[in-house]
């Protein structure tokens, strides 16, 4: 069907526009780097932002908390045992009369330290091991991955208990117990990434240009695997904190006078019926840590995934 008003549109109503040289190639949107884009996408994810706020609050609590209280987390006072939360002892006191607020700050710090240390060791060992395995491939990869398979098959709790029995309890024993089999997850992940990335055409292009192995690893492989590695770390940290809490709870955790969220929960658990706050307070701290890291991890995973780029 033709419109009746078609006669209104005539040739002289159009004006040719001249396209200047190179104008077709111009990009007007400001350049956005990969990391800026990640931040933008992360901030859009409300849950991730909540997680980040929780984590920052926990860090402030662990490091700045002691400044607000004059109590020493190790100082016992047998006249003030099992005091409920009050103006003097904000979170009450435990069965040895130690201030729970000061102790919780201290325990959070120790727990975070265990988590971050375990994740860092996983990171270093896993990235190097997985990177070598994936990059060189072939027989090297076969042998290295069989070792990983064997380690993966051993339940970590058994290794952890054996190790703690052999070398005795201590902060570093707990960290070691967590990482001795924990790094295989990171190694597998990094290997998979490297295996995939090294066949990318931009890596081939770098090789065709004569780039060295180290050059390719530093310039192309690590930056491109970084997103996945960071995400894995944000899940390793709460895993390690939880693992430590679990070991502490069954009595294999950090020894006294150190305190962690796990040992505090263990102590509180004994008086659950009479003084429930002694378990509830460290339990809430553990939950907040878990939630914070998991929210941030989920948010980062979505934000770092280039396939979701819009």
């Amino acid at each position, binding site marked *: 069907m033709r419109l009746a008003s078609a006669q209104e549109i005539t040739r002289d109503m159009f004006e040719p526009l001249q396209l200047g040289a*190179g104008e077709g190639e*111009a*990009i007007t949107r400001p350049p956005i*780097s*990969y990391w800026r884009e990640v931040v933008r996408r992360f901030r859009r994810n409300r849950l991730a932002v909540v997680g980040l706020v929780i984590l920052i609050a926990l860090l402030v609590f662990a490091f700045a908390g002691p400044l607000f209280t004059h109590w020493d987390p190790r100082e016992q006072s047998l006249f003030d045992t099992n005091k409920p939360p009050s103006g003097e002892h904000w979170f009450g006191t435990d069965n040895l009369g130690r201030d729970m607020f000061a102790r919780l700050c201290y325990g959070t710090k120790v727990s975070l330290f265990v988590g971050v240390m375990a994740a860092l060791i996983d990171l270093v060992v896993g990235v190097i091991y997985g990177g070598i395995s994936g990059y060189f491939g072939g027989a090297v990869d076969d042998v290295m991955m069989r070792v990983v398979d064997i380690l993966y098959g051993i339940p970590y709790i058994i290794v952890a208990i054996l190790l703690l029995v052999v070398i005795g309890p201590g902060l570093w024993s707990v960290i070691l117990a967590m990482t001795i089999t924990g790094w295989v997850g990171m190694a597998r992940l990094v290997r998979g990434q490297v295996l995939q990335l090294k066949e990318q055409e931009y890596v081939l*292009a770098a090789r*065709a*240009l004569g780039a060295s192995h180290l050059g390719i690893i530093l310039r192309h492989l690590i*930056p491109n695997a970084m997103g996945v590695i960071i995400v894995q770390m944000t899940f390793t940290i709460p895993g390690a904190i939880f693992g430590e809490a679990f070991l502490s709870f069954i009595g294999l955790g950090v020894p006294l006078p150190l305190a962690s969220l796990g040992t505090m929960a263990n102590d509180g658990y004994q008086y659950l019926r009479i003084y429930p706050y002694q378990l509830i307070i460290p339990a809430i701290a553990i939950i907040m840590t878990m939630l914070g890291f998991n929210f941030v991890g989920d948010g980062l995973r979505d934000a770092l995934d280039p396939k979701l780029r819009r």
Partner: protein
Amino acid sequence: MVQDTHAHDVVLEVINLKKYFQFSRKAVLKAVDDVTFSVKKGEVFGLVGESGCGKTTAGRTIVGLYTPTSGRIVYEGEDVSKLRGADVKRFKRHMQIIFQDPYASLDPRMTVGDIIGEALDIHGLATGRDRLARIHELLDVVGLSAEHANRFPHEFSGGQRQRIGIARALAVDPKFIVADEPISALDVSIQAQVVNLLSRLREERGLTYIFIAHDLAMVKHLSDNVGVMYLGRLVELAPSAELYKNPVHPYTQGLLSAIPIPDPRVERERKRIVLEGEVPSPVNPPRGCRFQTRCRTVKPICREEDPKLKQVAPGHFAACHLY
């Protein structure tokens, strides 16, 4: 030039090149199986064939991305596989490659400036202000502007990205470029842009190309000599005009008949030779001639004996028992 300058003209000789990939103890994929050809200085050598025929593997082996299983690649009289250390780097400055997929061939984490600059850094060609000036110059050569240097690959269109890939290859001032299906991932409207750029660069810089493609029409337009590959073998080799006028291998005939003729009357009357069946697996190719399973003119000898590349006309070679 009237005298026999043949020996001087040839820049690249590929002699009995084989590249096998070992999958398991028994399965060996013979991606490139005994391929021999030579490329003269300043020419465009087209390498055609359908997917999986080994043309990309051949190209990548020539630039040194894969180590040949056997055979030799001789560039300017030197056996490339014998080069070590600094000589390898020198060779890489002579020979560059342009990749098929402009989305995969640029590192998404690097700016365009750094992608091109990487080539300069590896060979220590320019630093500081020189490096930037050189990057801008290269962008200009491929029709992009200096301000694109701070952008990331995802901000560009396919054709623009392919030109960035070309700029990267040009950064080391190569003499020889293997273009591995540089246009097959692009829109038809953009293909001409990239092809024209490649042609212009060839004239301006005296480049020699190996142009790998499955689009015979484009290869015809560009190439001086064409090699047709099938299942890892070179089945026909001839000057471009000769090959298109007088294809002798049944496979080449089939391929050429797939090119539409831009005249509807002729096109309607034309009889197409349709190749029946699938390409056999390169892990387990048929005994005798590899093309026997799809050949219209198969003879008993084809099932027994592997045909050798024979001269059927001056400069025109074919591997077929019919000749």
